[in-house]
């Protein structure tokens, strides 16, 4: 029993040094040299001001901005220091409430958006909360759904907005992996810059 104590202590100490100190330091060193932007959070800096990270979404509810996913972080949505999903179960009435509230808000902001029935169905990602609460993306359908509203609120032509949406749409990696998506923060920044 005690004869194992020395190897156990020494090995734990050495592995702590190797994997707990040297390894992260080496990775950090290399990362800061090779990929400094990515390693530090892919920050959007304009005029010396940090406007956010292109990987982290922000809360939007102004009709003139594209809205992102619902965010379940607390105490405010899109709290990047406390990521979290809603964890609402599929049969939880609270889920239906949250979805209904978002649908109502979307419709209230854009009462003319009618489809086959009274209202066009809303792409599901726009009415559900993301897993991280920080999802920077919405689906292309969700962007297109909001397009008339944003164009109208900003007094822009739908084509002009559409051009921007297309510009900030990322396709699947290698045309295969992931989903086509629109980065909401970058799109909204671009909208502000255009105007």
């Amino acid at each position, binding site marked *: 029993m005690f004869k*194992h104590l020395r*190897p156990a202590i*020494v*090995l*734990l100490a*050495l*592995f*702590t040094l*190797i*994997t707990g*100190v040297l390894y*992260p330091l080496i*990775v950090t060193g290399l*990362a800061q040299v090779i*990929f400094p932007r990515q*390693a*530090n*959070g892919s920050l959007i800096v304009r005029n010396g001001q*940090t*406007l956010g990270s292109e990987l*982290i979404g*922000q*809360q939007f509810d102004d009709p003139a*901005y594209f809205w992102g996913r619902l965010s379940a972080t*607390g105490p*405010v949505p899109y709290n*990047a*220091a*406390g*990521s979290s*999903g809603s*964890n*609402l*179960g*599929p049969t939880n009435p609270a*889920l239906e409430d949250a*979805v209904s509230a978002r649908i109502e808000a979307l419709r209230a902001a854009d009462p003319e958006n009618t489809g086959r029935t009274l209202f066009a*169905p*809303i*792409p*599901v*990602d726009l*009415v*559900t*909360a*993301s*897993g*991280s*609460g*920080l999802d920077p*993306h919405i689906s*292309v*359908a969700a962007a297109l759904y909001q397009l008339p509203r944003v164009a109208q609120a900003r007094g822009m032509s739908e084509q002009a907005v559409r051009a921007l949406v297309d510009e900030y749409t990322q396709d699947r*990696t290698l045309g*295969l*992996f*992931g*989903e*086509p998506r629109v980065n909401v*923060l970058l799109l909204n920044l671009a909208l502000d810059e255009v105007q």
Partner: protein
Amino acid sequence: MTLNGILQIAVYLAILILLARPLGAFMARVYNGERTFLDWLLGPVERLIYRLAGVDPAQEMNWKTYAVAMQIFNLLGLVVVYALQRLQQVLPLNPQGMAAVSPDSSFNTAVSFATNTNWQGYGGEMTMSYLTQMLALTVQNFVSAATGMAILVAFIRALIRSPQTSSGKAGGLGNFWVDLTRTTLYILLPLALILSLALVSQGVVQTFSPYQTANLLQPTVDGSGNPVTSQLLALGPAASQIAIKQLGTNGGGFFNANSAHPFENPTPFSNLLEMLSILLIPAALCYTFGKMVGDTRQGWALLAAMTILLAVFIFGTYIAEAAGNPRLAALGADQQTTSLNPGGNMEGKEVRFGVPNSALWATATTAASNGSVNAMHDSFTPLGGLIPLVMMHFGEVIFGGVGSGLYGMLIFVIVAVFVAGLMVGRTPEYLGKKIEAYEMKMASLLILIMPLTVLFLTALAVITTPGKATVYNPGPHGFSEILYAFTSQGNNNGSAFAGLSANTPFYNLTGGIAMLISRYWLAVPTLALAGSLARKKKVPASAGTLPTHTPLFIAWLIAIVLIVAALNFIPALALGPIVEHLML
């Protein structure tokens, strides 16, 4: 289901299988003590470690010595992780000034990381200092994985060695210190180094700077109406930890949202890399196994059984999630999948991953005892959430934890061989080793510990006030949350139906017990079984020997794994996800 979704899953599985052979062959060389291309660099380091630790690498250990060494090392690690959490407020590298973690949460987390579970009752970016993340958690990510792989290798040696072969003392299983060291140095560190840099290139953060503040484009208000104009971006040395949490089937996220967090998993490509690393080593170990026992068909057979089960269940989850939630459809949400709309059940999922990648990850992470998530399992449809539960109910043997998954599967192989052996009229044998009463005693013990732990702790939680108090979702889904919590900890998985607030003394304590049982009460009988097998003569194969590499045997093994899990958990599942599905 879309063609693209099916393709993504198929390509993923194909890459995984392609990588299994080269890595598996390399690992076999490492464990056989043969020369590798890393010797020039790591050889001197390895020898220095042995000298400092006073380890004679040629010294063979019998199963008891091996088990004692393994447990002392793990206990020591557990104590260190506990201490670092309790003391982090006075230690350096704590730019956010994190306070000491509570005793019960520290215990749970220490057990969680030492046992390769990485269940997280806490939220990483809100709880742990950079020092704790590195010295406590990253280190355990390495050594707990190495421990599992060491035990597996000891078990494989038991199948290879026999009193007939002059090499190897009777009953010797190798040397735990050597297996631990070589696993960490030659396998885990190089892979983690490569993967972490690849992840940084995609946007995973790796920095020691404090959290960054950004000005919001559109200021907003918090719940009490106060204006909010800025966003605090949590950062840290994440990539180095994420790489090993994926590779070592640990799964403990740097951030609370785990791999759903954009800084932990920013792009579909990082997602692919992380998903591959979940199953990479468990898959490759199958080949290592075949290589070491001198019959690679045996390894391919196990990999085939695992892959078939995995593939079937991935598509199960995919179908369930792609179908979406009929209640949301009724409200006017469009869940139809089109080229522009990912559709399906998007609650708790990230747009960049969509349904196929979320379903694939959820199945893979629970098949392996990884437990990291890129979508919130609690918000899956009932059947979509049932599958991750079931994957764990298999006992984490479909790939499973690094090392532990394969030795768990080998226990099922022994049971399968036993019943099948009887059916062909011979005393059952596996790889020439007779399966007799002692082996069945240990195998039975190993098979019954997990369901009993999970069921009894769940039962305890559902009849006690502290157990019921922190359930989040109402109805049968609440039951699923508790069942999931103990299933996850009772199988060293670590994923969660995270609605349940598990950072309470009750759940920290009971969960800690579940994790300890599931790791060591399985590891020690496994080693005992290895000790018995190592002392057995090898019986040469004949036409009367049941071949264990044929499609028939693979099918039988799959059936045994399915039936045992089904029999153990059908009633519990009926009262959770199944009834919830029928209520939809």
